[in-house]
């Protein structure tokens, strides 16, 4: 009798477990037909998400988003009198940024005691001359947001500094076994010095192993100096601008719109969770294709821009699994960003590099974030203009992702792949560049009937400009001047 009972129980448990497993696979892999049917409605129903959450989630070809991603795309290694810049994609960049990021995380977490001291802003130039690692975020991060990117909800650093833009890490301060971070605090006009105990062996070894690369030396403007005006100077350069001393190697790249066929469009639709056969499709006069569903719409422009909007409140594409609306918990910034990056890779693949340029959190709506991304080619940023460059237009972010509690609400993406065509050796005759900046500015100011004063260059770097025209992109010098946020460009001269 007992034997029979046991057999029955075993059989029942086998049947139940196979039903559950079948349902799990069916719901997880969405093994229903593409046609509009009953099961499509259940896709977002809470129970169909609740069951998979019992089982450990298998990564779906997800690319791990590590600290490299929100680390600045270039890191400068200071060797005292000279320094070398390494950009994303280079082996040395990977090594340096990994170790420096670990140390920065230790500072953000504050698990070890952190000793703080405030120094006058004038000390910053002395700090830059130390043997150190220097990096700056193009747009300063709110300290709280930077902390959340490292997975720390309320970093103690927020009590010292509101925004973090420029950071110097000195592995050996010559006095103690501590490592020291110097963070420029422009809001208060001071430099914060943060010392903490840390196993710095890797940092020290790295900085000693890599001597200044002969073909990539830079000087800060204040070292030359180019920041001090006198009776002859008509161009000065902000103290912190890095001036290249050697010719730079870059590439001519081809800008390719990856949407070439219906197949490519289908892939995009699938990324947005659309069923090709159930959408309403419209084509406008300029060949923009618009797909509409009850809760959202998607536009694909012929120049490669795609626009997605969730039209109903509370609706959109769920990117962070396991959270349902009304569950009470908010999705963290880190999880939201990782989901956004994975989603973007799903659309453009893993070949095209991009970086996060800014993050905004809505203070009135927890879990609500906007992430802005831009492309890199060979480690150099690509500036995107929608429309004709040369007018008063400003560049736009290539990718913009709005998420609320893990749900995609709004998405803008300039689809592009940048293919290298040929290398180019760029001459860095700085006198020519500064003369050109003066002439360029003088032409603009004369057009506006302004008189020409001394021009202060606030930023100078190499990049690419994509204004939507097909064809080749040549490297350009990008620069900013005082009292203007606009980025201007000069052609490079090849050696």
């Amino acid at each position, binding site marked *: 009798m007992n034997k029979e009972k046991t057999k029955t129980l075993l059989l029942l448990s086998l049947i139940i477990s196979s039903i559950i497993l079948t349902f799990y696979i069916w719901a997880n892999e969405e093994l229903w037909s593409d046609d509009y049917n009953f099961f499509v409605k259940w896709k977002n129903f809470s129970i169909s998400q609740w069951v998979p959450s019992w089982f450990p989630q298998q990564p779906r070809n997800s690319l791990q988003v590590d600290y490299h991603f929100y680390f600045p795309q270039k890191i400068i290694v200071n060797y*005292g009198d000279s320094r070398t810049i390494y950009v994303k994609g280079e082996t040395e960049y990977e090594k340096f940024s990994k170790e420096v990021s670990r140390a920065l995380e230790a500072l953000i977490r504050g698990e070890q005691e952190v000793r703080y001291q405030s120094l006058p802003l004038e000390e910053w130039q002395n700090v830059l001359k130390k043997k150190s690692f220097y990096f700056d975020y193009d747009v300063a991060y709110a300290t709280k947001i930077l902390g959340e990117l490292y997975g720390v909800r309320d970093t103690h650093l927020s009590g010292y500094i509101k925004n973090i833009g420029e950071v110097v890490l000195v592995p050996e301060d010559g006095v103690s076994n501590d490592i020291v971070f110097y963070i420029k605090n422009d809001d208060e006009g001071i430099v914060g010095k943060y010392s903490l105990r840390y196993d710095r062996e890797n940092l020290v070894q790295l900085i000693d192993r890599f001597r200044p690369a002969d073909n990539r030396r830079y000087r800060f403007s204040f070292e030359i100096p180019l920041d001090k005006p006198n009776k002859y100077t008509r161009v000065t350069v902000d103290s912190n601008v890095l001036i290249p001393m050697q010719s730079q190697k870059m590439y001519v790249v081809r800008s390719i719109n990856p949407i070439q066929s219906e197949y490519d469009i289908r892939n995009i639709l699938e990324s947005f969770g659309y069923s090709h056969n159930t959408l309403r499709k419209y084509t406008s006069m300029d060949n923009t294709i618009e797909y509409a569903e009850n809760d959202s719409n998607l536009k694909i422009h012929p120049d490669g821009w795609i626009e997605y909007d969730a039209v109903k409140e509370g609706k959109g594409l769920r990117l962070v699994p396991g959270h349902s609306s009304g569950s009470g918990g908010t999705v963290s910034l880190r999880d939201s960003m990782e989901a956004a990056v994975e989603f973007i890779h799903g659309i453009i693949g893993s070949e095209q590099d991009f970086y996060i340029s800014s993050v905004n959190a809505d203070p009135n709506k927890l879990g609500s974030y906007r992430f802005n991304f831009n492309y890199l080619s060979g480690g150099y940023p690509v500036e995107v203009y929608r429309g004709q460059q040369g007018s008063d237009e400003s560049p736009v972010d290539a990718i913009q992702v709005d998420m609320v509690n893990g749900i995609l609400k709004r998405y803008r993406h300039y689809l592009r792949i940048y293919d290298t065509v040929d290398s180019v050796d760029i001459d860095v005759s700085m006198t020519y560049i500064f003369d050109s900046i003066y002439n360029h500015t003088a032409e603009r100011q004369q057009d506006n009937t302004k008189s020409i004063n001394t021009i202060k260059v606030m930023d100078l770097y190499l990049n690419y400009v994509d204004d939507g025209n097909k064809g080749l992109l040549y490297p350009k010098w990008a620069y900013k001047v005082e009292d203007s946020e606009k980025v201007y460009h000069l052609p490079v001269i090849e050696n």
Partner: protein
Amino acid sequence: MKRFIALILAMFIMSVAGTAFAAPEIMSVNDMGNATDLIILNNNTGEEITVFEKNYVISGSGQEGVTVTLYLYNSTDNVYKKLYIVTKDGEKKLMEWKIGPSGLFLGEVQLAEGNNWFALRAEDGASNYQVEKINVTFKKGFIAFIKDLSIGFSEIKDFMNSFKK
């Protein structure tokens, strides 16, 4: 005929005048120039500068149109000679700048170990020229010395290994 001779004479004078005021290949150590307000150097002049890096930046500002030529002291001949650098293509390039509208000039030179005495001659195309001198001593740091030694040892090792093959 007279006009023809006058034309030839004028052309001759112009060419001589032009060459007379172009920077000479060699400059005397005692040449102090006849002007002081054509350029302002950023580098310290009149005192010895000691550095531990072989790459040294020379920079300054001046009136637009002024030509600045860099000279290096030659101890054998006891004169300053124009400094030429060899480019990647193997060509000789003169270290000279014509100051443009920005008013700036700058360039980098590689120092030899020990004393490097430079002179800059700034000319305005009329008869005015200014001479500034910079004395830089390059000392290799101890760490750089050890690194060079270790690079030297590894080169010897590679050389010995090439025989084994």
